[in-house]
């Protein structure tokens, strides 16, 4: 499986490590790796085209046209599920920091904004029930409104917490997603995906 890492991703990782330490970075990478492993284990052979690591996070390129709605939804939710399983195991082992990182990553990926797992899950679930047009409209509505609210929330959190620049990439991602959904750009994203696998044809 080809893996592509962008320079922006390397820069962000180096900056994160310098500010928070290599241990914390390894925790985040471990949670992300488990997340992607969850997706990969659920996906059937031959559907994964590659993995991209960008400043916004990791993105799995897959042949989603080869999957049914239900199967793709299952594979999509396998990522956050893997995170929660890891968190449960970490709690048992009293590895609270790893548990917290995994839980936060899983919850973040369930936000209903494309291309996050949650946004894609909304599209798939509604498409499965009511057809692709309804699914697309539902995803756009959720993504547009949710993206704006989440961007505002991230900005508020940055200010209230005394300033933390680690919220800038997701804030930018939320804004891009919201603008794209509101403009009706569909899945022709120029913003990169985030930590969960992102499905692209």
């Amino acid at each position, binding site marked *: 499986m080809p893996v592509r890492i962008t320079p922006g991703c390397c820069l962000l990782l180096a900056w994160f490590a310098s*500010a*928070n*330490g290599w*241990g*914390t970075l390894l*925790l985040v990478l471990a949670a992300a790796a488990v997340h992607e492993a969850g997706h990969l284990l659920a996906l059937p052979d031959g559907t994964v085209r590659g993995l991209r690591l960008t400043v916004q996070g990791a993105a799995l390129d897959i042949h989603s*046209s080869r999957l049914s709605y239900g199967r793709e939804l299952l594979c999509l939710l396998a990522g956050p599920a893997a995170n929660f399983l890891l*968190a449960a195991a*970490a*709690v048992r082992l*009293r*590895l*609270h*920091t*790893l*548990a*917290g*990182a995994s*839980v*936060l990553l899983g919850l973040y990926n369930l936000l209903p904004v494309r291309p996050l797992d949650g946004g894609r899950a909304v599209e798939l679930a509604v*498409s499965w029930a009511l*057809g*692709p*047009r309804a699914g*697309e409209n539902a995803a756009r509505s959720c993504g547009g409104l949710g993206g704006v609210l989440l961007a505002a929330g991230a900005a508020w*959190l940055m200010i*209230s*917490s*005394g*300033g*933390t*620049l*680690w919220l800038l990439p997701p804030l930018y991602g939320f804004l891009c997603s919201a603008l794209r959904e509101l403009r009706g750009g*569909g*899945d*022709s994203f120029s913003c990169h995906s985030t930590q969960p696998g992102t499905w*692209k*044809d």
Partner: protein
Amino acid sequence: MAAVQTGHTVKKRTAGRGRAPVRRTVGQSGDRLAMQLAVCGGAFVLLVAAKVLLPGQAAVLRQSLGANLERNLDVREVFSAVGRAVSGEENGAEEVWQAVFRPLEPDAWTDVPQDPPSGTDTALPDSTPYTVGPGQAGFALDVLRQYRPGSGGAEARPRPDKESGAESGTETGPVSAEKKSGAETGSPQSDGRALPDQVNMEQSILNFDYCTPVFGTLTSGFGWRTDPIQGVEKFHYGVDLAAAAGTDILCFADGTVAAVGESTSYGKYCIVNHAGDCSTLYAHCSRITASSGASVALGEKIAEVGATGAATGPHLHLELHRGGVYLNPIYYVSHG
């Protein structure tokens, strides 16, 4: 599959899915690159022009950006707090809140006294008071750090010997605490050495009622001592009262909780603002039960004794400040 050709772009519709991939044309990529180049180039020209034409403002902007780059909540602590909350620990949600909303940088304060106070005794000179709002957790700690360069905050083990101290004011609270044995290297020196800035050894009258937060054994007093962890002479800015872990820590006087946080030296700490521009700091706690911004009464439980941070045993490290000046708490507490 249906295919529609548009210029150099081929769109394909996959049956049953209703969505089509879109491929960018060469012309569109070139336009995008040109726009990006124009934006970046314009930003570069603007920044250079600003630095050349407005050097003062550029320097201020650079400092502000640098401060923003350094500001960062403790990501690891947030993860740890979330993990503890998920594991079902008590006050998990509160710990997450505290971990996320960390104190702002000291430069956020504009009323910090810059000159050391002159004069001693009961009439302290006027000094610009600093206030901490309820929502600004930890401000006071960062402000106080300005008066404690290089302080490590390390504490000594409890010792069986007692130290006498003057008492004054109205005091209430429970009696006695467990006495522990152990080596003690934290005895302050009274050899006439100069006091650090912003320290007042004289007993001052506090114009409000107060009580002893913990009835414990005085293991380290206020003043110069050999740091038990670092082994060097350092000024101890508070008093250490040894007590069993989990012993209730009572609020010194009526006030408002200004800061609740955790640091490597203080461990879990709490700062309470009182009347008369006074404030107290309670460090090395095992648990903080008071919330930032809450009003607390004299004798109300605000924390529990612990050994968090740079501590060699469970005890309360108590500091008392007035107008940015460290007072000797020994005059205002009872101990075993």
